[in-house]
């Protein structure tokens, strides 16, 4: 028993670089040899899926790309999934970006989606592009879209875009989805977009933000939430098109196991030292 305790003690106070190596391997190995695990969907993800299913036929959906390259692994699978579901249900997509790099994320997403759906620009989708101003943009869109966007990201005047007819502010959209990694993002869309106009709003966020957005989901201001990569994986399984999120799940699970294992070891070591001190 004593040998076991000494071993735990050693493991309980190991140099943090040892943990770094283990985390690195726990993430790298599953990426080399993908192992798929059963995906169980949670209600908050189902709420988003159902909210999109309930959009009336061929409506106008506003998608906002409010994230950058550093949070792409978490949010990109969500925006791709939502685009697939929206296009399958025959809606039109209007894309705005509150983050400067959101434009590049939108361009990447459109490139990938184009391979599956023959999209016709200005009929199936329009890329309005990035406008600086953070919450001022959402407020502007709520009051008068044409004041914020006079041209789309390619420089075409809105008047020459057929699908922009009758679209003057947020109230002309039947649904809003924001893929958000921070500020500006879900918070600003709720406060200046969803609440004032009443347009149903769903959001996909990085896992760290889930806690902050949870009260809005509970009070109904946001229709469900896609929480981090697991949320994206659940959503991918709901629209049954497995993507990078599902592949990332194995790496996610093993890394979590390593962390939980070390937390348990750390506590066991703590208890043992605590008991030994009490004895002497």
């Amino acid at each position, binding site marked *: 028993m004593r040998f076991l305790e000494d071993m735990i003690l050693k493991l309980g106070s190991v140099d943090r670089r040892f943990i770094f190596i283990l985390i690195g391997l726990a993430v790298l190995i599953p990426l080399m040899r993908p192992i798929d695990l059963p995906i169980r969907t949670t209600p908050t993800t189902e709420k988003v899926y159902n909210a999109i299913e309930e959009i009336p036929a061929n409506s106008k959906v506003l998608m906002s790309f409010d994230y950058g390259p550093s949070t792409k692994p978490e949010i990109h699978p969500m925006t791709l999934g939502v685009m697939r579901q929206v296009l399958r249900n025959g809606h039109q997509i209007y894309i705005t970006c509150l983050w*400067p790099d959101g434009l590049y994320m939108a361009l990447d997403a459109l490139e990938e989606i184009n391979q599956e759906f023959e999209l016709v620009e200005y009929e199936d989708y329009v890329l309005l592009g990035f406008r600086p101003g953070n919450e001022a943009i959402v407020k502007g869109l709520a009051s008068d879209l044409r004041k914020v966007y006079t041209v789309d990201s390619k420089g075409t005047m809105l008047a020459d875009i057929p699908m922009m007819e009758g679209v003057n502010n947020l109230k002309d959209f039947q649904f809003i989805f924001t893929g958000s990694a921070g500020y500006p993002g879900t918070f600003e869309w709720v406060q200046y977009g969803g609440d004032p106009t009443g347009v149903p709003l769903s959001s996909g966020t990085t*896992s760290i933000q889930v806690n902050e957005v949870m009260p809005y989901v509970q009070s109904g201001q946001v229709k469900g939430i896609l929480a981090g990569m697991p949320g994206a994986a659940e959503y991918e399984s709901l629209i049954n098109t497995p993507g990078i999120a599902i592949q990332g799940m194995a790496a996610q699970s093993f890394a979590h196991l390593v962390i939980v294992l070390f937390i348990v070891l750390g506590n066991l070591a703590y208890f043992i030292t605590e008991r030994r001190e009490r004895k002497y």
Partner: protein
Amino acid sequence: MAFSTIFGAWIAAFLTLGILSYLYRDNPFYKIAEHVFVGVSAAYWAATFYWTQIYPNLFGRLFPKDGPFSFIAEVDFNHEFNILYLFPLLLGIMMLLSIFKQFNWMARWGIAYTVGIAAGLKAYGYLSSNVLSQISASAVDIFSGSLPFFNMSGDSVFNNIIILVGTVSALMYFYFSREQTGSYGKFTRLGIYFLMISFGASFGFAVMGRISLLIGRFNDLIKFSDPSYNYGTFWMLGLIVAILAYWSFKNPEKQEV
């Protein structure tokens, strides 16, 4: 594959591994990556802000096509002319002049304006979405009888009672006018328990989020180790590991104090 893409991939692999080498310890490769990052990002944001703010919004409004000042310059973003934009121009120039010691005070106008609109805009936003809607959501449904007494995932009377008690006790923890002792202290201690559960939960969520970002970086490194990128990652990995081993042999790690 164009040369610029391959060359770019090699640089990306080098910089990625340079930052990751910081996990081992502070070393020359990290210092190079750090200083490249600081230098490039300062100029990147200066350029991005200029070309997305000053050029379209300020000059676009002060020198619109055939506007009053169009003899000086014309910047067409089809904004109408707006004389009021002379005010931010003035504050901006004063901000730049504040670099000279005797004009140091000039920065105060720009700071004052920024703090002024921050106070006004943020106060309303937080009042409506943070305070008012959360307070009204705290008046939870207990007696309507439409909810089951207990339910693991959905709403239920038991859950609502816990939310109510938790919210009020945690709110009272932030009450400053009374020392947290005696029975009042026990109530705020209950508040701390709810706060700790909330912190644990969001820490748990954060672990997930961060791991997925590492997945993204490793995916890129695996992509750049592909023959089409001339095995960029492997070359860079070999280079960094070799030099790093030699370097750390030459300056052993002083035991951190």
